[in-house]
């Protein structure tokens, strides 16, 4: 599980343009929500990333994952993540939300016949105990998950 979270962090940083994240090296990370299903098709991870060189402020990343699609199979989910209207909110306990930086979608190269598609949304970092939950809108339908301070 930790390896997967680390991989998510690396993939997330790799999708950021250089001006905002010059180092692109994950120094450490803290998972706030670990691969929680939102629906039958989508799961969500929330992680806090700390970069190594450059003393960049940490990032909060919400990563949505699509069910893997095996090449050659008839696709039971014809609509890719990139074709869905997706919006994400990180809720703060004081009734506000965390400022969003940007959203990036990537399709990972096929490995062992499996294509993985993810969408990452980047937020300003706030003390993790201030984050109450994450809300994801997929084609207008809302999904909410609590984030427990720990």
């Amino acid at each position, binding site marked *: 599980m930790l390896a997967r979270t680390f991989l998510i962090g690396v993939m997330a940083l790799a999708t950021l343009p250089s001006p905002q994240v010059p180092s692109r090296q994950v120094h450490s990370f803290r998972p706030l929500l670990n691969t929680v299903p939102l629906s039958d098709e989508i799961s969500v991870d929330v992680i806090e990333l700390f970069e190594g060189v450059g003393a960049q402020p940490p990032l909060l990343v919400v990563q949505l994952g699509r069910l893997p699609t095996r090449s050659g199979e008839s696709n039971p989910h014809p609509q890719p993540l990139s074709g869905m209207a997706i919006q994400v909110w990180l*809720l703060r*306990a004081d009734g506000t939300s965390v400022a*969003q930086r940007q959203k990036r979608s990537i399709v990972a190269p096929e490995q062992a016949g499996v294509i993985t598609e993810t969408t990452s949304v980047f937020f300003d970092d706030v003390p993790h105990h201030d984050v109450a939950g994450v809300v994801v*809108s997929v084609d207008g339908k*809302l999904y*909410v998950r609590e984030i427990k301070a720990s």
Partner: protein
Amino acid sequence: MLARLFLIGMMALATLPSSSSQQVPEPPGRVLLTAAPLSDQITALTVTEYSGRCAGIKPQPGTGDGPPCIQVKLNGPVWRTITDGVSSPNLLSVKTTQVWLLRKDGTAVGNLIQPMNAMRSGDSPIPYGVLFTFQPVPPQELAGVVVSVDGKLYAREIKADQ
């Protein structure tokens, strides 16, 4: 003991004034969302847009108008008068409740005023829920509302495209 509590609850309900008997008439508002009970603690959720004057806020002197707003009202179970001196464990309170009004652009609408405990008027005011008042935004920009009660989250979509 249970019989006494039941009797007190029934007396409380019997003393509830109807909404039509409130002393100050509410300004007209456009209901954007009414939701079925979210839980045992939230028996109703209503999101209302007030374009003229916000309900519960005094109008500006001389104009009769007041700040427009969007209000989210959460109703909870009412079965005990506050004058009993014993609070119901299921009573909604601003201390344990939070509401986020989500915009489609990924932000949340700011509060216009501090949340309030909603009280029914009468000789013995009875709390029946909580009221969150947000800054006015075009309803078509709203994506939904999220409610937290005792740390548990509930989300409902708002579809007000017209």
